[in-house]
């Protein structure tokens, strides 16, 4: 078991005298990424800033390697703990290298002049994050994504044991999001440090975190592995999702279903129905879907979006009972769409449904329904 590097005990975080989050206990080991998630305004950033000594603690204690952070000098804290924020840097006439070099601040002398070792570390941080080619570019002349990466390089150049990032992936496109998180992943392993970050992207939090801390209603609601947090309906409860649903398996969201008497019947399966479900939802047409196996990749989407869903147990052929149920729903619809291209033993019932639809004359064969 790797050693505990950052511990918070009964932490109260907030601004001024106002406590935002209370009674927080955190323990992070080297090589771990801890992600804080929670609804807007729950106090994620407040907690982060309190851990990073940016805000005075309103209660409790924070330890780095068993040393109480309040007993450490600012310079010593700076050597253990570095931060990366999303605030826009307004500094004028500073190259990216200048910015990254400020990471060496706690290690330099009175005038802040960099030694050759310092310069080497800055260079390494630039290469690790892939921003070496931007060294001489003005910080104001690069894209948001590049700037975010430069700020990460700065934090790395500070050679911390704990790296604290506030929403590092906001402003980034999907490629840069993945790249940044991959860099963090590598960093915690190779340098044996820990990362504490806040993220809004649940799918990324689920994939790139070792531990997740959920903050809501002024306290730490739950802490655990991504598997523990992303299970059942917990995420929906945490965020109070009311205008749609969240698929904890894939970390994806679906919009709110259109309720009402089904007008269209979709014969789906194997994921082929998902685009149709979403198209019908966008057009506010209530629809029924069937017969979908409970282990089908599109089961969750269908369950979220369809006004009525006829489902079958996993790994079972479609039963007569399910077939009859689907048929009675289908007969009330004005149109039937079939997304399935091939039928086998398990979904033979769906083939029969299609035949029925054709014979009744409600089958829509065209690409555009």
């Amino acid at each position, binding site marked *: 078991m790797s050693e505990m590097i950052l511990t918070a005990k009964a932490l109260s975080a907030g601004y001024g005298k106002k406590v935002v989050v209370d009674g927080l206990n955190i323990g992070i080991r080297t090589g771990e990424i801890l992600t804080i998630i929670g609804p807007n305004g729950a106090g994620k950033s407040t907690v982060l*800033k309190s851990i*990073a*000594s*940016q805000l005075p603690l309103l209660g409790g204690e924070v330890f780095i390697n068993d040393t109480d952070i309040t007993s450490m*000098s*600012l*310079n*010593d*804290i*700076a050597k253990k*703990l*570095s*931060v990366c*924020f999303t*605030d826009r*840097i*307004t*500094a*004028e*006439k*500073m*190259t990216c290298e*200048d*910015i990254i070099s*400020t*990471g060496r*601040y*706690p290690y*330099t002398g*009175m*005038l*802040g*002049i960099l030694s050759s070792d310092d310069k080497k570390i800055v260079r390494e941080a630039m290469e690790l994050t892939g921003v070496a080619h931007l*060294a*001489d570019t*003005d910080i*104001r*002349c690069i894209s948001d994504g590049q700037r975010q990466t430069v700020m990460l390089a700065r934090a790395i150049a*500070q050679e911390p044991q704990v790296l604290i990032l506030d929403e590092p992936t906001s402003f980034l496109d999907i490629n840069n999001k993945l790249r940044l998180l991959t860099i963090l992943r590598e960093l915690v392993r190779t340098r044996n440090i820990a990362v504490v970050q806040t993220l809004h992207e649940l799918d990324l939090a689920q994939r790139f975190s070792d531990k997740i801390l959920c903050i809501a209603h002024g306290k730490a609601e739950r802490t655990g592995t991504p598997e523990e947090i992303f299970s059942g309906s917990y995420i929906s409860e945490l965020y109070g999702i009311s205008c749609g649903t969240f698929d904890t398996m894939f970390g994806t969201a679906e919009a709110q279903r259109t309720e009402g008497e089904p007008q269209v019947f979709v014969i789906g399966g194997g994921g082929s129905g998902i685009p149709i479900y979403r198209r019908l939802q966008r057009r506010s047409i209530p629809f029924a879907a069937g017969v979908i196996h409970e282990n089908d990749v599109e089961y969750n989407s269908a369950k979220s979006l369809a006004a009525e869903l006829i489902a079958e147990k996993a790994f079972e052929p479609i039963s007569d009972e399910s077939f009859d149920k689907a048929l009675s729903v289908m007969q009330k619809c004005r149109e039937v769409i079939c997304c399935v291209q091939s039928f086998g033993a398990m979904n033979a019932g769906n083939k029969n449904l299609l035949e029925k639809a054709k014979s009744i004359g409600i089958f829509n064969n065209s690409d555009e329904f």
Partner: protein
Amino acid sequence: MTKKRALRWTVGFTALLVLTAFFFILELISGTTDLTVSEVFSALSENNSAAHTIVADIRLPRAISAALLGGALSVSGFLLQSFFNNPIAGPYVLGISSGAKLTVALAMMFALQNGIMLNSAAMVGAAFAGSLLSMGAILLLSGKVKNMAQLIVAGVMIGYICSAVTELAVTFADDANIVNLHNWSQGSFSGINMDNVKVIAIIVLAASAAAFLLSKPMSAYQLGESYAKNMGVDLRIFRFALILLSSILSACVTAFAGPVSFVGIAVPHLVKTAFGTAKPIIVIPASFIGGAVFCLMCDLIARMLFAPVELSISTITAVFGAPVVIAAMLSRRSQKRGAV
């Protein structure tokens, strides 16, 4: 790039030093009595000639004080710009010079009425009190206004209030003192003697050196408060030092030369542009020398343009400085749009 930068900086500093020497010598040789360089040197060595009086008692202290006070203004301006993260902040526009002017005028009038001669230290002390007063008002306001333009407007207004009160006080002063006070309140490097120069040199050099030692936290502060804090800067001490030093520097200028406009904004902006960096470790010394060049040049023009009539120093610094301030403002705007 590092080499290119080092070369640029070396050239920059050399050019500034050459210009300082150039204008300094011009200050010594030109005037109602024109002297050659060799005459200036011989005048300094011989004792009782008219030339000696002109050079040693009038032109030399004037040139030295113009150089030192110009440097002081520029460094003070740069400190304030760093503090407020605003390139158009300076002791003049924020009303800090006017605050100092007010207290110095009151102190002078009080002293004259009671027949006391104010010494240099008392003048600086009075100016420092006034600077801090205006600074305090600005700091109170800066907590309330988030917009940088509003802060500048507030500073200009504080300046107007202080100037109005000064004018009011001058109006009721004794006739004999009015001329003196009026000249001083317009700003001028004339009438500074060698004893004043010693006091100026001690205060300005010490405060500028202290400012130079703040280069490191200042460079961290340029990234914003959160980062500075994370890098181990004690923000309370740092801010206090910035305020203190910028107030001392601008107070010293106002005590001896009256309010001098726009130098504090124009010079740092020109230096940052010429040196292509905002690193305090470069900008502070370069601003100091640049301020010396700027004020020597402006003083020369103020003296010579309509000689023997002498213009107030602010008239000239405004002509050269104000356009630079506008340029600084525009570059700030284009920066927000993402251009250089």
